[in-house]
């Protein structure tokens, strides 16, 4: 086991967790506004998946994308400033929490219409194939997305055109207040893949290493054979759908049960079990993450709002 790798993953997951805790705090202070969808509890999915791909591979995500953005760019300042609606944000304060973009790092959003980004991800994969480039596209979406027409059309096209697209369904059991079973006729979202058909695999989304391995396999296949792959990551969001949601639709027991497999806790145990680091050293990494987030908050606080005279810029090129 590569110690540096494990510690790096741990550090990243801490960054995601601390970032969102700080974002939630800033929201309660009115410094972050609009919708804020926290990823807390799902960190192993984004961090594990993105650790398995090349920097040149593309990422397309949803409105619950802070962790995907951080795992790809490490840029806590740009993300926090965006949440604060500042000119220094990764989308200049124009996008907000749901619309993080970083063209340079091939992080292609940040989309907030459920399923609408799946065909776009297929298009990015199409472009790689068109240009005979080796890049693979990762597309993240939720369990509730599997009933949306755009999801279907994206998969149908990826299947028939054999696009290098890895579809990662983050099955966190709920679409807003709706448990999966109420809107999906099957228990596993990956059953949907059978209709195209498309290779599919179910993975424990709370185990960052399992996630990493599964994505590595899927991406290799997509890269070499130019074939799409459907990964269903079983996970859970510890918080509400957005910070405005008290999540009363879940029992304490259920939440408790999942919190016991907190992906960060699981990784910490493994690291200590392997003797790679002790609690103190892990805490130090967490402190580092906290410091980086604190720095990001200060950066966001001190950054200027977008200049009013720019309000009509970037409507057209």
């Amino acid at each position, binding site marked *: 086991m590569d110690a540096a790798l494990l510690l790096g993953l741990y550090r990243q997951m801490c960054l995601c967790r601390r970032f969102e805790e700080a974002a939630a705090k800033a929201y309660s202070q009115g410094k972050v506004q609009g919708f804020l969808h926290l990823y807390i509890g799902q960190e192993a999915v984004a961090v594990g998946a993105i650790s398995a791909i090349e920097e040149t591979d593309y990422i397309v995500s949803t409105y619950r994308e802070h962790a995907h953005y951080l795992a790809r760019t490490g840029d806590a300042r740009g993300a926090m400033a965006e949440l604060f609606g500042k000119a220094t944000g990764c989308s200049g304060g124009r996008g907000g929490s749901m619309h993080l973009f970083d063209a340079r790092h091939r992080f292609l959003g940040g989309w907030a219409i459920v399923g609408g980004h799946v065909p776009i991800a297929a298009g990015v994969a199409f472009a790689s194939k068109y240009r005979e480039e080796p890049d693979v596209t990762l597309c993240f979406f939720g369990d509730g997305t599997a009933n949306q027409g755009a999801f279907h059309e994206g998969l149908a096209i990826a299947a028939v055109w054999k696009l290098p697209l890895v579809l990662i369904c983050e099955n966190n059991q709920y679409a807003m207040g709706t448990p999966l079973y109420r809107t999906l006729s099957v228990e596993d979202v990956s059953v949907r893949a059978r209709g195209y058909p498309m290779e599919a695999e179910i993975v424990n989304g709370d185990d960052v290493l399992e996630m990493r391995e599964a994505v590595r396999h899927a991406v290799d296949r997509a890269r070499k054979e130019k074939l799409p792959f459907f990964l269903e990551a079983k996970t859970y969001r510890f918080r509400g759908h957005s910070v405005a949601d008290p999540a009363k639709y879940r029992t304490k027991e259920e939440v408790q049960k999942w919190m016991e497999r907190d992906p960060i806790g699981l990784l910490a145990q493994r690291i200590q079990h392997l003797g790679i680091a002790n609690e103190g050293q892990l805490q130090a990494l967490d402190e580092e993450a906290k410091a980086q987030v604190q720095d990001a908050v200060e950066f966001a606080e001190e950054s200027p709002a977008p200049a009013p005279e720019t309000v009509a810029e970037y*409507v057209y090129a």
Partner: protein
Amino acid sequence: MPEPRVITFREALREAMVEEMERDPSIFLMGEEVGHYNGAYKVSEGMLDRFGERRVIDTPIAETGFAGVGIGAAMVGLRPIIEFMTWNFSLVAYDQLVNNAAKLRYMSNGQFTLPIVFRGPEGAAHALGAQHSQALESIYAHIPGLKVVVPSIPADAKGLLKAAIRDNNPVIFMESETMYSLKGEVPAGEHLIPLGVADLKRPGRDVTLVTWGKITHTALKAAEALAADGIEAEVLDLRTIRPLDEAAILESIRRTHRCLVVQEGWPFAGIAAEIITLVAHQAFDSLDAPPDRVTCLDVPMPYARNLESLVVPTPERVVGAVRRLLGRDDAPPQPVIAVRGR
């Protein structure tokens, strides 16, 4: 004579649905989170407990699917109320509304009526960004076969929603997140407001502010500020965009001789353009000044609050436009925001 009570816009909408559903078992409510979650914005709170899962139905995230289900159910005699969590999400179901709902009656030679209401909030709330802040009445009012209703106060919300539910046509009913907690006097029990009838929210003699929905309150604030300055602005709340109460608009303009349309949506081919066209064509000679409009800036909605507040219409912008309309030499110049490609 039902005696009025003060309740919220949200409660008024719920009351309208509950009363109608009590009256007619063929009415049901369907949408994302309307049942067990009691509504994304709690409009349908308590309705699942009251009517059960048969009539208050949580849907998958499949707007084309459940909009179509509503249309099919209405074809065979049910009276669906379809809630879009917000109208932004109706765009994935746009084909169902335009190509199916709006056209069925005509192309079947009147064999079918389609008593269906599509409702939910629209427009900007607070810092929801470009994909979640759209006022979309224009793209629906453009379509023959659809009716479009946009209430501004709780009493109208109840009376118009009850009328929409009883209407035998597809009705687009647009609300606003930012108004759900707005309180107002609302008659208990039977209270119906016919579709297509505007309401004079404030009388005035110097200029007519034609408006509807949430922005009516922006117009009213502006009228107040203008009054302090001796300018009497009339505020005409259309309430229904289609059918449009042309008579009420023309009657008012012929009295005030000045027309300013105040709307939230984008300007280009928006509702304001239709109203100005009506006025320019039918009341040309009674106009003392060119008709004008105050709208959202012609840009997608930015997230940053300081930018967002520049984009949406404000009382200040309305006041400035009125002063220009009245030729006040102290009027601020027309703000010029150059948008390339426009």
